[in-house]
């Protein structure tokens, strides 16, 4: 079939372009690796700690901080390094203990710990956690200091007595329960899963758009005209070009799916549904590429514009900031995201990944994606009929 021959020659051109080894094969994996490393683990705040003194109380505080699961502690030896690191965002906060921490407390003096943070929301939860830890450790010393000041007995005796007295009492208990179903589904995401989904959409669309330059070239170099001069209908040529674009998109998509499964252990959910989503989104990408190929007459321009549109639509469509973050914090942006086909494909994958969905569950999304594809293709073919030979 001639259309298949045209498509095959498109794919051969694509395969021979050695730049694609980097942009189509290496770059997606590199980005998924970087994204998984930066964002995938869930953000653990880093707190710098300067604790020059020795003594039981100092050690107890240091141990308590290091064992805390809300942040990670980085030990440093001088204050200035910590301050600079906090200023630059390499640490979320810094704690500076004075060298005489133990002695001062035992003497009943007031001790000040410096908490260094950038103004803003993030440091507040760290501060609260530190305050709680300190309150716990200072409970007995505080009582001892008070009793000693009341003049009833010396500090050490007061401390021992307080320990004995409070050991027997029950105190106020705080009971905490959680209500409601957590939004983020039953299965927790693997470290690289979300990044892989987002980059799959980004790259399928981007590679398609960037590759639309090939279609522009076909027109400009006169290849299309020569095809038209043979006993070949316009319909066959358009079908062949369309299949060629589609092949490129599919290659990119299947490669990323298989590659991430093998390299990062990414789970895509029900295989048939996943393939259908890729197939549908491939149609969307190739349709957009056909449209671009029809609208541009200069392939030198088509490529950078394709890159710009590819990145921009991906960002808007939830390929950079996740959709669920948008939904929680910026509903207006979430709504805008669903103008882009990427968002619908990502929603489909979310159904697969988080709710163990199957083909039936993703059918509505497939329908929407096919709608986008149809719109692109109709516009492209309508325009291409006129300009194919120009």
């Amino acid at each position: 079939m001639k259309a298949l021959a045209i498509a095959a020659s498109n794919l051969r051109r694509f395969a021979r372009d050695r730049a694609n080894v980097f942009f189509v094969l290496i770059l997606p994996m590199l980005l998924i690796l970087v994204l998984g490393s930066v964002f995938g683990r869930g953000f653990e705040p880093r707190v710098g700690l300067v604790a020059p003194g020795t003594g039981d109380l100092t050690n107890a505080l240091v141990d308590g901080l290091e064992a805390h699961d809300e942040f990670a502690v980085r030990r440093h030896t001088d204050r200035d390094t910590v301050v600079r690191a906090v200023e630059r965002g390499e640490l979320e906060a810094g704690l500076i203990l004075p060298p005489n921490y133990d002695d001062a407390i035992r003497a009943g003096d007031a001790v000040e710990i410096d908490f260094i943070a950038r103004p803003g929301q993030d440091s507040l939860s760290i501060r609260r956690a530190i305050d709680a830890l300190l309150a716990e450790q200072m409970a007995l010393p505080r009582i001892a200091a008070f009793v000693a000041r009341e003049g009833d007995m010396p500090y050490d005796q007061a401390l021992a007595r307080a320990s004995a007295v409070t050991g027997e009492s029950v105190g106020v208990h705080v009971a905490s329960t959680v209500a409601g179903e957590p939004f983020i589904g039953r299965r927790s995401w693997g470290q690289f899963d979300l990044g892989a989904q987002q980059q799959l959409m980004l790259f399928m669309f981007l590679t398609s758009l960037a590759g639309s330059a090939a279609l522009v070239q076909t027109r400009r170099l006169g290849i299309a005209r020569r095809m038209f001069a043979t006993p070949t209908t316009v319909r066959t040529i358009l079908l062949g070009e369309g299949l060629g674009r589609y092949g490129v998109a599919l290659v990119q998509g299947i490669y990323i799916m298989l590659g991430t499964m093998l390299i990062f252990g990414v789970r895509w959910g029900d295989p048939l549904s996943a393939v259908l989503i890729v197939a549908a989104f491939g149609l969307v990408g190739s349709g957009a590429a056909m449209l671009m190929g029809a609208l541009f007459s200069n392939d030198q321009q088509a490529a950078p514009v394709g890159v710009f549109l590819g990145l921009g639509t991906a960002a808007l469509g939830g390929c950079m900031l996740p959709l669920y973050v948008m939904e929680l914090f910026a509903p207006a942006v979430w709504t805008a995201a669903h103008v882009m086909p990427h968002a619908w494909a990502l929603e489909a994958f979310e159904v697969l990944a988080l709710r163990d969905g199957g083909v039936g569950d993703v059918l509505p999304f497939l329908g929407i994606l096919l709608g986008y594809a149809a719109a692109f293709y109709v516009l492209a073919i309508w325009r291409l009929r006129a300009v194919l030979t120009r």
Partner: protein
Amino acid sequence: MRSALVIAAKDLRQRARDRSVYVFAIVAPLGLAAIFGFVFNPISDADFTATFAVANVDQGPLAAPLVDGVLGGLAQDGNVNLVHAASAEEATRLVEGDGERADQDVDAAIIIPAEFSARVQTGQPAELRVVQNANASLASSLALAIVQEYARQLDYVQGAVATVVSSDPARLADAAAIAQRAGTTPSPVSVRDVSATIKQLGNTTFYAAGLATFFLFFTVQFGVNSLLEERHAGTLSRLLAAPVPKRSIILGKAITAFGLGLVSMLILIVGTSFILGADWGNPGGVALLVVAATASAIGVMTMVSAVARTSEQGAVFSAIAAVLLGILGGTFFPINQAGGVLAGLRYATPHAWFLQGLGDLAGGSIGDIVPAIAALLAFTAVTSGIALVLLGRRLNP
């Protein structure tokens, strides 16, 4: 020197006619900065107010400091919204979201059960309850922290009074006064807030600067690659045959690249400042950083092109280098958060130094950018040196 300027002028005129330069130099960075800003800004600007449902069933003297004092104080400051519930069940329902006032997103319920004050005052076990909303972990953990701190304070006062009384039972009569004094005695350790200056770029500026830096390397490459294009077009051999020293040709190409880079950065800085509200900082410092960054970009891209044999290969290698350096240099996301090797690797890119220089400038003064400038100039020197050696061999007629 004059011939270098003539070559540069011709190149710039050629570039001005090529619309793809405008896309890389202006449209793409500005457009993407606007899009990124639209997508990312709302979440960082999100106002953090928590809503708590409070059920004070006890209504006793030990509930008031928590409800009216602590929570009431937070509500007055505007950090917290309080919804008063008549019972524990109502408060819990509000958090679960199917009560009469279900449209309010209640982050947590704080319940002070009946007889709480009485039980604490008579030394019996007592309990405070917090019901957290599964989807509001930040806000609900705030509620838990507040209640736990209050419980600790009660424990402390109880412990202080008990310790005093245990050594001198006669003072039991004085318990209330002792409790009062204990309550006002601070903890031996206090935490002092030291506000660090922010040596980081604000979000909008970060995207603007990151994207501008990323695309700078592409823009500069237009000037650099022209050398290989001329070779392909056959005009290079004619240039070399003319009484023009080799270094003038190289210098002319460098001037073109420099001009393209500076002009595009200037347009981007002005554009993002006015249209997007980005704040690049002290103009003098920014100018110095931009010049150094452009020079380093030219050095790097020339070195990469010098390795290529055809202009097409040059374009490909340059694109790959620009993308790799841009990603590793943290122009798209804060790669310093990745930790480990990836975070350290960014210092091998001029991008990271430029962004760090801008950050240091934001939180300090011009003097703070010296390390960044030094690093950028070092990049320039090393890469230009290698490039010149490689080019010298290629520029033979």
